[in-house]
């Protein structure tokens, strides 16, 4: 783990997408006037014929991608998460998910860590909306290595995928040779004092919390859930059986996201108390990404505090 070197998953996405463009002529990229910041611009410069800017029209963006997919291309579509999923929800539902078209929606600027733009641009409901759609696979990656893997791996899935990406730079967690698998969580440690299940940008926080707690003689395990749907039930049930406390954390509303997904698994498979950390059903606010993580209590320190102060389990 390299805590000092940071890279935003949107950057990893843009670079990996351009690599993927070299590997396959089938890759088409569409954006809605945000290519500079979603980083699809990297692809656009290398493959101008396979890049379409649809302008500020996200509903159209999604449906155009659906049409392109019917010609056996694999469209990757990007915008900010709030517009890609919220503005165009019905288009995703009826033009992509229902007909099960091979469109990859790769949305950046998810969560409050989108920062200064404030609540209108901080998407905290996207996991919830996307995972409730039949036929949809949902990914939320935590670092550069994992994102690069995901960008290429989702091309192999024949169907709709939502990939959740972030604006804020985050530490590199994984070595280049780490093996990932869609639908399989990644576990750090075998600790039995507790489990922190995390996704996206806060996985690094969970790992920092693991280190801090270790210094106090508390050994927890951390599970990185990069695939929200289909979720890795086995790793969650195993953790519930083997460890004392279960904490989930996400840069997303605590309603409908990772925490809810974990509760859904455990409620039927192994009922157990789950402490859900995240954005507590409130809109975000302007500020720096790092400041907002503190403000909304989704940092390593917050995890440690919640772990130590919660006596429910």
């Amino acid at each position, binding site marked *: 783990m390299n805590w000092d070197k940071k890279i935003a998953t949107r950057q990893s996405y843009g670079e990996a997408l351009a690599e993927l463009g070299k590997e396959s002529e089938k890759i088409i990229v569409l954006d809605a006037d945000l290519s500079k910041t979603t980083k699809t611009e990297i692809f656009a410069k290398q493959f101008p014929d396979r890049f379409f800017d649809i302008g500020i029209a996200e509903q159209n963006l999604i449906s155009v991608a659906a*049409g392109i997919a019917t010609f*056996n291309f694999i469209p990757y579509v990007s915008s900010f998460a709030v517009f890609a999923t919220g503005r165009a929800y019905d288009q995703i*539902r009826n033009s992509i998910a229902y007909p099960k078209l091979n469109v990859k929606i790769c949305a950046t600027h998810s969560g409050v860590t989108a920062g200064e733009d404030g609540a209108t641009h901080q998407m905290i409901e996207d996991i919830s909306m996307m995972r409730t759609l039949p036929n949809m696979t949902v990914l939320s990656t935590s670092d550069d290595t994992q994102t690069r893997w995901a960008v290429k791996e989702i091309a192999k899935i024949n169907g709709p995928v939502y990939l959740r990406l972030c604006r804020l730079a985050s530490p590199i967690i994984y070595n280049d040779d780490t093996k990932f698998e869609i639908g399989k969580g990644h576990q750090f440690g075998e600790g039995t004092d507790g489990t922190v299940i995390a996704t996206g940008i806060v996985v690094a926080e969970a790992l920092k919390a693991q280190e801090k707690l270790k210094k106090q003689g508390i050994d927890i395990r951390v599970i990185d859930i990069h695939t929200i749907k289909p979720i890795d039930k086995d790793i969650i049930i195993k953790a519930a059986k083997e460890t004392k406390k279960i904490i989930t954390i996400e840069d997303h509303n605590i309603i409908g996201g990772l925490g809810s997904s974990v509760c859904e698994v455990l409620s039927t498979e192994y009922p157990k108390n789950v402490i859900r950390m995240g954005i507590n059903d409130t809109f975000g606010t302007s500020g720096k990404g790092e400041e907002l993580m503190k403000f909304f209590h989704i940092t390593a320190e917050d995890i440690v505090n919640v772990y130590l102060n919660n006596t429910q389990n």
Partner: protein
Amino acid sequence: MKITNIEELEEISRNVRRDIIEQVYKAKSGHPGSSLSCVEILAVLYFNQMNINPKEPKMEERDRLILSKGHASPALYSILAQKGYFPKEELKDFRKLGCRLQGHPDLKKLPGVDMSSGSLGQGLSVACGMALASKLKKQKNKIYCIVGDGELEEGQIWEAAMTASHYKLDNLCVIVDNNNLQIDGKIENVMNPKPIDKKFESFGFEVLEVDGHNIEKLIKIFEYAKQIQEKPTVIIAKTIKGKGVSFMENKAEWHGKAPNDEEYKNAINQL
């Protein structure tokens, strides 16, 4: 197998009208008025114009049709059955549990359906995507998209219209089924989309108008539309909602309701 004989195409259209009434009557639900208004448009496209092969419904070089006003599905289903995409007996299953003929077209279930539709305003964007993809593959597919005139109230239609002319999609032909009625009444009273022609013109379209029930004129206009280059075409087809069934004609209330026993017999006798 292109049908050029006008009478034959008229006979096909009559069959479609009967099928629409039968389907909606048996299902006890559906949209007869909207289906009856686009019969000739579909008949001419599928039997005279489009490069398609029912034996190879996924053929890459085929022309595509998106019925963006997906509630007119009974018309499309009758056409597809007559073309041989699936057995005609299946029309009786329309809207029934377990059927392939869903209330609105489903491309996963039914061969011949090029795109699922039902949520209005999305079909034209999908058509733009198909037209872009076809150009990218250097193929010759023509992409047809039928939209309702009430559907033009959806903002996404105009996002798509911008895209069509921005990318010079001359392989795209939009047909507006201009029957002047929507569920709540006359289009100009509910939310006026007029002037439809000037709107499309200002968005960069070649705008054509035709009597949407005149087969000969429809063939001519589709042939003419194929010659247009460097810009998309829209054909504003003047139609009558409920066309062919006297008591349904120009009546908004027949947008989405099934005939009772007596109305059914009356309608079939007229056809």
